């Protein structure tokens, strides 16, 4: 567990070191949400009936959908992404040569990759 946390911390530090990109990805979340809010508000009278069984508010419905989409796509891709980039850079070999167990390394790499991917995803979805 400590090993996984160490990898997440290293990834967070790496992400944080790209300062402009970090600020832009946070700003881009707002930029993405704003038009969705207004569009959903405009479509509320028409969409309310069709989503009546799931939700009463169309904006909330869309936000939950977006979050689920980002979560699924980053989760599914995180381990292959982490392992692939680790093989490419040689980091994976270096990590596997340590005393840390393979499950804890994979957990740490996947979580770290999830964070990086969701940040990239939120940034690219606003463009």
């Amino acid at each position, binding site marked *: 567990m400590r090993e996984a946390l160490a990898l997440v911390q290293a990834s967070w530090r790496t992400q944080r070191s790209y300062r402009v990109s970090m600020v832009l990805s946070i700003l881009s979340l707002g930029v993405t949400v704003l038009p969705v809010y207004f569009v959903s508000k405009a479509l509320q009278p028409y969409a309310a009936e069709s989503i009546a069984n799931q939700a009463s508010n169309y904006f909330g419905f869309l936000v939950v959908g977006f979050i689920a989409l980002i979560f699924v796509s980053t989760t599914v891709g995180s381990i292959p992404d982490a392992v692939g980039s680790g093989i490419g850079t040689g*980091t994976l070999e*270096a990590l*596997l040569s340590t005393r840390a167990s393979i499950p804890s390394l994979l957990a740490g790499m996947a979580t770290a990759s999830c964070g990086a991917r969701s940040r990239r995803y939120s940034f690219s979805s606003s463009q």
Partner: protein
Amino acid sequence: MSGLAARDDASSLSVSGDSLPPLSDAKNFAVVLDGISKSFPVRRTWGDMARHPMLRPRAPVLQNVSLAVSEGEFFGLLGPNGAGKTTMFKMLATLVLPDAGTATVGGFDVVGESSKVRSVLAPVIADERSLYWRLTAFQNLELFAKLQGMRGAAIRTRVNEVLHVVGLADTGEKIVAAFSSGMKQRLLIARALVAQPRVLLLDEPTRSLDPISARAFRTFLRDEISGRQGCTVLLATHSADEVLELCNRVAVLDHGRLLATGSTTSLARDLGEERYALFTRDANHPALAAMVQRGVVGTLTVRGEEDGWTRVDMEVVGGMERAAQIVATLVEQGVVVARFEKVPLPLADLIDRIVRRGAEERSNA
């Protein structure tokens, strides 16, 4: 040359590939490989797979390799590209499993006791891209200290210690992206040293360094890593300087087969050839050609002139006695000789000969 001679004495204590110690003695050696073999599947084209769907061709990378490296030894691994050096290192680092044979590191089996092997061995196989470039040197080492199971204040103490050892104490807070190649190499070594390994595997550590940095790095390896830290070092390299300056013994690999082990001088001796330089004014004297014809000396190579004297290199089989006879014969026949001295066989030539001899043996077999 004197350094080489001194190391030659040490090599007489070590074990050649042909006389492997019994595995019960494995704990007395830092590394023991006994009949290790490994092959990888050959990548095939779609057409080939369609024609021969059941065929599973494999390319041998290591074939029945046996060798032993003593505690504290600086051992060189030589051979052309694709010889199997890196695969051997990866096997020792528990990253690749052997198909056959056994390998132990510090007395622990690389297959059955891989976690114990990882606690005594550290590989520096990956290149500098395997560092976290956006993190500082300290943060890189801190991460690996945590992965090696260190906790609390011990991490900071050990990381600072290691940074000091590799000469990066002043640049610990600098991000790795701003480091020179030499500094990154040192950081790779530091990363390996964090867990205080007994055995260090170095795969071409000076390949991206300029000659001056490479020399400084070799000094660092010899004095600090091998000397003060007392690590057993296995070094895969193409550099003659590295081998001559650092290694007690070397092993030559080609096509996955171990062709020879020993010090460079003993290997040259085993090849049965020694090189001598003759300084004469009569490089074209018929007596020289006659000696080649009679097989008294091997090939003659005119190397150029020094102060009006022509240097002729010749290979002599039969040691000093034969060399003395050659000088006597040449003088008797009127060849003017200013100097006749033994010169070390260049490492590249030595490897080339061992590899060629191995290829001949393979084709004969």
